[in-house]
């Protein structure tokens, strides 16, 4: 449970300084109401699919054609393509296309279903989640035509016990050994030993059984991460896998020049009948790396030459571009729209601002509407009232302190609360990074909280160090933006790292430094519930309980509007807020 959301977010964010292209406009912004158009995918409910859902081939995308080259633009290079080490939304999206795993997500419209990928279903358990059994499908092959066997899945998991590679997801490693320091229990296959049968059992070439230390109802979700991607021992090139993984999906890597380009060609040994989510429509994916966000928008809006058949992997446009989309109907038709897994908030340093009424006053005075204008108003996302994202299983809004409050907060009321608490002149250090969005967002916050009687100070932190500074226990900051995306759409990967007092440590993810023993106890209790749906209801109750202490100010549910060229078909968001590569075709 390392820096999931954080890492993914770092990659996603820095959208700070984006721009777009030409078409000089002097006609004025206008005040058309359709600028507010709500995201089309409101709540993407997640369902655990059946064996029938897991059966290939995947349903054809209407109008899909075969052939052509799709260009993909990305701001950064792909630092990790080893499926077990990819833990940032764009890396995970690419890795899911190349490397199959035990389970995966099928996204149809607003509906997300967890289905078996290599496995025939999402896993079966007979003892309430302590033992998980998977059976592999028929005719599974790697890029060189050799069959995928259960022992390779086991070896793939074993590799990820290597301590040096802990930048990837570590859920399964921790659950198998029952320890956060899983590498002490088993150091990985490079030391010579195998994981014993009482941890992972491979009775035959098609069956793999996981024996966990304690029941985990979320195991099928964790199995959708790259940790369970198969790896034949003979093909393990260790570090080199990170730049050129051994493909099991519909595409294989033919060229990878790190930080420059990545070319994926069809894998002829991939059998569509064995895969219920992926397609092999385009002949080639050509990724261009190191393209700044602004350049991506300019190129994709102009859509000249090969850019007509290109798209951005996960770059969200900024405020200026929002206006361009709103005024250009042709462009509007080639932009995705939906909510990703990220809920953004402003965390309050609970170690320094200990009075709950002061924190409440901060939330009431907070000018959410003005702040959001810096990133494009409603196109950045709807205002949030919960910690949970609408994509979380069981999401249900409850009565919050924002009900009935003006969108820019009520500074007079906040001032009264502050006076009642005897804390007028409470010093609040607002920490921002040096990007344009954060600087502009700080202006109304400084102003309005100042009006409510707080003594506001602002501190700039470099973009790179941002999470390190706010993650420190003795951070100088009192109020700071933070975003979190769950690893899978249940509450298990939200409340555990973000509001558990045991995560109040240096570089911990409880950035609000919120400590409430009652909440810790609840988290432990809810984690033991193995019925995922019953658990989801409890998570929402916990969400409300935490928000009564106002450890953070909920801000927005991040909306993902990603541009694609006019020749691209089948573009839609995946569960990570990037464009789903599985259904892409060239019109």
């Amino acid at each position, binding site marked *: 449970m390392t820096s999931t959301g954080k890492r993914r977010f770092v990659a996603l964010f820095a959208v700070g*300084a*984006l*721009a*777009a*292209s*030409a*078409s*000089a*406009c*002097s*006609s*004025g*912004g*206008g*005040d*058309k*109401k359709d*600028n*507010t158009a709500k995201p089309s995918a409101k709540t993407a409910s997640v369902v655990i699919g059946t064996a029938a859902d897991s059966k290939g081939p995947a349903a054809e995308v209407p109008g899909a054609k075969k052939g052509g080259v799709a260009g993909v633009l990305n701001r950064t290079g792909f630092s990790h393509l080893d499926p077990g080490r990819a833990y940032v939304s764009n890396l995970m999206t690419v890795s899911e296309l190349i490397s199959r795993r035990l389970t995966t997500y099928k996204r149809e419209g607003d509906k997300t279903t967890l289905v078996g990928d290599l496995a025939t279903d999402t896993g079966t358990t007979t003892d309430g989640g302590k033992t998980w059994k998977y059976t592999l499908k028929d005719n599974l092959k790697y890029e060189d035509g050799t069959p995928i066997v259960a022992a390779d899945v086991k070896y793939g998991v074993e590799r990820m016990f290597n301590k040096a590679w802990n930048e990837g997801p570590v859920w399964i490693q921790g659950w198998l050994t029952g320890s956060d320091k899983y590498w002490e229990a088993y150091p990985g296959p490079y030391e010579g030993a195998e994981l014993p049968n009482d941890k992972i059992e491979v009775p035959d070439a098609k069956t793999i059984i996981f024996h966990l230390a304690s029941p985990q109802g979320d195991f099928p979700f964790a199995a959708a991460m790259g940790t369970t991607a198969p790896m034949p021992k003979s093909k393990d090139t260790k570090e080199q896998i990170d730049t050129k993984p051994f493909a099991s999906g519909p595409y294989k890597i033919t060229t990878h020049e790190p930080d420059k380009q990545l070319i994926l060609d069809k894998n002829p040994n991939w059998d569509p009948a064995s895969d219920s989510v992926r397609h092999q429509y385009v002949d080639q994916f050509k990724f261009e790396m190191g393209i700044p966000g*602004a350049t991506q928008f300019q190129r994709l*809006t102009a859509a000249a030459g090969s850019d007509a058949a290109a798209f951005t992997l996960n770059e969200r446009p*900024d*405020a*200026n*571009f*929002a*206006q*361009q989309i*709103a*005024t250009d109907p042709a462009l509007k038709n080639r932009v995705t729209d939906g909510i990703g897994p990220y809920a953004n908030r402003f965390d309050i340093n609970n170690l320094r601002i200990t009075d709950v009424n002061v924190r409440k006053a901060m939330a009431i005075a907070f*000018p959410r*509407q*003005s702040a959001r*204008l*810096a990133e*494009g*108003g*409603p*196109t950045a996302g709807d205002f949030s009232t919960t910690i949970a994202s609408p994509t979380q299983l069981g999401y249900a809004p409850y009565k919050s302190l924002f009900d009935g409050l003006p969108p*820019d907060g009520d500074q007079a009321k906040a001032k009264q609360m502050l006076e009642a608490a005897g804390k007028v002149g409470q*010093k609040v*250090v607002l920490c921002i990074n*040096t*990007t*344009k969005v954060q*600087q*502009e967002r*700080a*202006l*109304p916050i400084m*102003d309005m909280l100042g009006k409510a009687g707080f003594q*506001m*100070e*602002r*501190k*700039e932190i*470099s973009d790179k160090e941002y999470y390190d500074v706010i993650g420190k226990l003795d951070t*100088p900051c009192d109020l700071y933006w933070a975003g979190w995306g769950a690893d899978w759409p249940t509450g298990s990967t939200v409340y555990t790292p973000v509001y558990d007092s045991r995560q109040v440590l240096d570089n911990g993810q409880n950035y609000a430094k919120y400590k409430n023993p009652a909440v810790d106890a609840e988290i432990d209790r809810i984690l033991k519930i193995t019925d995922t749906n019953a658990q989801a209801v409890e998570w929402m109750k916990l969400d409300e309980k935490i928000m009564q202490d106002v450890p953070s100010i909920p801000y927005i549910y991040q909306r993902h509007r990603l541009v694609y060229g006019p020749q691209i078909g089948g573009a839609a968001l995946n569960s990570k807020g990037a464009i789903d590569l599985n259904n892409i075709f060239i019109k």
Partner: protein
Amino acid sequence: MTMQPQLVPEAGGSPNPGTPDSPLSEAGVAAAPQEVVGRSPGQLAWRRFRKDRSGVISASIVIFFFLIAFAAPLIEKLYGKDPYTRYGQIHPGLLNEVGAPIAPNGGISGEHWFGIEPAVGRDVLMQLVYGIRTSLLLAVVVVIIVTVVGTILGITAGYLGGKVDYVISRVIDTLLAMPSQLFFIAFTPIVLALFVSERETTPTMLRATALIIVLSLFGWTRIARILRGQVLSMREREYIEAAKVSGAGSGRIIFKELLPNLWTPILIVATLDLPTYVTTEAALSFLGVGMTEPTPDWGRMINKGFEGMQSDVTYLAFPAIAMVIFVLAFNLLGDSVRDALDPKSNR
């Protein structure tokens, strides 16, 4: 820097041949016309400058910019808006829901003459007017520091020679070899962190001081280099020899003998340096290490305007045009000053 203005030819092709003040000898001394009038070199330079139309125009523009910078609070009073209030966010009907100005042309209206800033909703005219202050103040201070330090070190190196020259020249070489832009980006935050508690807002003056320090650190090398070369050639001249022989000390020779002959290059470099620092400061703000919000700043305005070019070109137009006019005017002025003071150069 060889942008030659459209000069009125002084000698030979003078538009009014025969006017008393036009024929000048090569040395810049008035050749005997119909009537002999004694003029100092300063007077001559001034006459030459006055006849240089582009010089006069650019000088007026530069003076205009300085006036606006000085009179900013007065303009604020008359105009009734300040550069910090977020008009568009406070008053409904100015910005639409995605933060773009509702009125055409970037929200230009009787209330907001140059329109309003997208997203934040501040008044563009006031931002521009106060932005000049930021840019000019920083640039003028840096030019003064750089000129004084550069002059002293340049003359010292050139006149004393030997070890002193060696040390100063190597320092100059080192500084010139360093990528200054990268240095600014890396060191500005460190300089700032040294002086401010991490729980306090960085004062604007401190930020300005830090910028001035880093810019000056690299800036003096240019003028020092030029002056060192000049002095190297001058110190062997007869009048210096004469001064030495008659017992003058180094100080006297430097200040009384050398310096008066160096005013021309100093003035020229200084006038050409000023617009360079205005653009450098803007470039640093563009890169995010210059002046930060909420201090009005041209570099940041241009950066923001550039990003929003396709949706609100007006917001880019005002600061960009203002910057182009200012830098162009100052460069032309620099050229004219050089032509007036040193008519032999670059002909």
